[in-house]
């Protein structure tokens, strides 16, 4: 195998790997969206809450906390770090309890992080 062929092969392998990685990342984000829909949306989605109050509990909490300086909907945030998301899921905050690994596994938590940080500035 000459040098040109080796170089071409390396480039091809790298391209395929990057493509596979990108595909993996897309799948991880898709899984993260499912995790978000199942575990987070009932409190952190849009929609109306108890007796017609026009926000759900988690969304209302962030609305009150940030007073419009950050989006109240988690899916619209672009500033949350992976560490923050992991800490909140595993430690809870105020009345939001923490989640066990039979509920949100470490793999699913990685996916959730990938989804909620998808729009973060790199």
């Amino acid at each position: 195998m000459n040098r040109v062929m080796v170089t071409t092969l390396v480039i091809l392998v790298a391209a395929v790997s990057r493509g596979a990685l990108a595909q993996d990342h897309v799948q991880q984000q898709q899984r993260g969206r499912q995790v978000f829909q199942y575990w987070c949306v009932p409190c952190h989605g849009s929609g109306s809450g108890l007796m017609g109050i026009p926000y759900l509990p988690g969304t209302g909490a962030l609305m009150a906390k940030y007073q419009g300086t950050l989006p109240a909907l988690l899916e619209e945030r672009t500033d949350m770090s992976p560490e923050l998301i992991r800490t909140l899921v595993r430690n809870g905050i105020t009345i939001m309890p923490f989640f066990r690994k039979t509920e949100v596994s470490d793999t699913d938590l990685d996916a959730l992080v990938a989804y909620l940080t998808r729009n973060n500035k790199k």
Partner: protein
Amino acid sequence: MALLPKDVSAADFSAALTKFETAIGQQWVFTRDEDVALYRDAYSPFWGEPDERLPSAAVAPDTVEQVQQIVRIANQHKIPLYPISTGKNLGYGGSAPNLSGSVVVDLKRMNRVLEVDDKRHFALVEPGVAYFDLYRHIQEKKLNVWIDCPDPGWGSPVGNSLDHGVGYTFGAFRDHFGSHCGMEVVLPNGEIMRTGMGALPGAKSWQEYRYGFGPSVDGLFSQGNFGIVTKMGFWLLPQPESYLSGIVTVPRRRDLIPLVEHVNYLEDSGLIGQPEYTSPLGGGLGGPPDRALAALLSKPQWPTDAELDGYAQQKGVGVWSVTLQFYGPAKTVQANWEYAKERMSQIPGAQFRDGERYRFPLSPEEAAKVPHKVALGIPNMAIFMIGARSPLNPTPQDGHLWFAPVIPRTGEAIFEAQEAMSKVYREVGVNVGGPLQLPQTWHPRTFVMLVGFPLSRSDPQINKRSREAFERVAQVAAEHGWGEYRSPPAFADLIAGLYSYNNHALRRFAETLKDAVDPNGIIAAGRGGVWPRHLRGSKA
């Protein structure tokens, strides 16, 4: 490993953990501190204090056979187990055990909806199935049944009913244990037992005839510790054609007495679902009462009837309202509302207003807009508005401790309970109760005078005050003949001790059974206030 089960050596515990790993897979045995900490009660009234009930490890089986293996291993090594379903019993103990050092048996992975029959109206589910899951299953398959769910939809029909949990729709369906039919249980010796018709091999009506033949033992497994329930059947409501609500408002405080009598008649006649009592005078989710009313309510002496009636008249509102909910064919729900109005017009000054009206099935978009979703059996999490930070509540709490005494279903009992319990709350300095407090009406035959004492994960003084309030008001309630229907583990002994008729005959009977059925005391020691012999009388 920070914690060992009581009276278990490190060697025995280690040997048991190794066997658990062999039985169910290493990844489903949780022993690292950060993993075990996820089984703490997030709303523990002893958070971070020496008396907090903490697990030593957790195991998460996927099958009934794995549950059997766990129980047999626990018996060999005398390891205390504490089963949870979805582990979301917040305010009543969460996923933490009564006995510190117990190994939590986390049944969340057993999450199969085994059967839903929309012609005979029942379901059979595993413990890890959440109300959300069962609802989605029914919606996806377009089945013609409703579930009855508690406020937080992430709970489990099995776990909720086994703790005598409750819901919001029609009659006996709201009593979730009362509407169960048939169980499969792994007994403390590892055997599988099926109750009711399930004891008959090949039975065709396990989820329809509860009793089978011989003694009915299902109740032993609710708030009990005689086995691990691995399957459970539930009766479901056939989807009604329509829903109608109507609001009745009465002008005077004492009108609550005839109001409750009329509502009792309507409910016990099968004409209405859950009645929901409120006071138009304010408070609740609408924010705190105005200054004049707040002054009236906080007077050192209880406000008189005339003062409250006068305030209501001045504001142009009634003192009490009740929302009546009608389920059924469109023609009959309208007729029942007309009948209710005619009947309740006997209360001078009663006013009537039409509420919501739905025809079923609802589209997902329509369902999302329903203000009180649980009234239509739609699981959700909106109840977390209570206590959460919000524009109306800028200072959130970290949880709550439910105090839930059962009182008779009369207006007189409401007044008596308001005054007796609020006196304690005032003395302790907890801002709950008061002259406008109204009962929860989940149970079809009684009221629950629920309050949630605030809890904190950073301020032990708040927890101390809430514990003191709980202990004192539980005693006062018992002196009036009111007992709790449910309790966090930290207070299970206190509450069970108050059910003391004939020198604690009921508890002694349960202990006799416990000694016979679970001689090693491995299942949920202390649950329901029932301890195995070797821990009895000790402060576990």
